[in-house]
């Protein structure tokens, strides 16, 4: 399952991008292509097992995950 903190944005508030980029709501920043493979659970990576940002966010409730279907 794609990480509930992941969303795609086509601007950073100032600059517009040609295409949408992966943005992590838990850390309030865009993430690298390598990291986004984990956000998307591709290649057997899993955000719950493999992402320390996800775990910290869940423990500390730093950010609210998107509800199912909201993305």
């Amino acid at each position, binding site marked *: 399952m794609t990480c509930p903190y992941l969303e795609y944005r086509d601007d950073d508030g100032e600059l517009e991008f040609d295409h*949408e*980029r992966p943005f992590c709501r838990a850390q309030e920043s865009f993430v690298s292509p390598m990291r986004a493979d984990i956000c998307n659970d591709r290649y057997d*990576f899993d955000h719950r097992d493999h992402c320390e940002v996800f775990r910290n966010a869940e423990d500390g409730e730093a950010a609210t995950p998107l509800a199912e279907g909201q993305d």
Partner: protein
Amino acid sequence: MTYEEYLDGRKVVLTVAPTGGVHGKDANPNVPEQPEEIAAEVRTCEERGAAIAHLHGRDEHGENSARRLQAVNDAVRDRCEDIVVQNTTGGQATYEERVQGIRTDPYPEMASLDMGPFNREQHIITEHNRHNIESLAEEMREKGIKPELECFNNGHLNEVHRLIETGLLEEPYYVNIIFGHGTFTMPSPENVLNMIRNLPEGAEFNLLAVGRHQLPLTTLSAIMGGHVRVGMEDNLYLERGVPVESNAQLVDRTANVLEGLGCELATPAEAREMLGIGGTKRAISG
């Protein structure tokens, strides 16, 4: 691949690695991600002296996707004169995904072949076991694709010797020695010399080093008779705190240093000759 060959004026093959799969525009907005962006960068680098382009594919969001290599290859061939296309078969993807790098149409003239796994961040380990490595080597041999043997650390050189013994490689063996953090070989001139000392007979070598090690260690490579790889896959900064503006900026800087050392850059045709690259662009049949 010797200091004497440097003194004798042997040409240096410059490879540009414009994008990779690790960094994105979040790290440096100048990293090219989409096929046309990558191809435009590669074309400028070819004009400045790059003979080989080491290519990765990204999906529409900039994420790793070997399936986009076909589109990247097409765009590069459309724009460039003669640069050698070298596709990745590396990275963190599964074997089924990575093998797409040698299944484009036409086949690439070269492809990278990682000699073993390496770690990244807290949990990423690339999936390069011997079975996968040999399968890729075999398919490359069948298709006339020249492998670039990626040695992320000196243990990987053992695997180059082993692959030679299995008869899967042809001379000259083109070995890429890699220096950086994590499980890469620690970046120092002494380690560069040590890696070169342990190369097999009949090898040509290329050097890549990450970040601030890129310029000094590639320069050392050229002096030791080797070849060089530069580009934003390996280095996002021109100097501390100054982001790279384009791949051409890195190519220019290295080309200027090499010129000062009396080295001429090889053209793509000369690179094919020196490295034993088939040069035939075969179509996929069946």
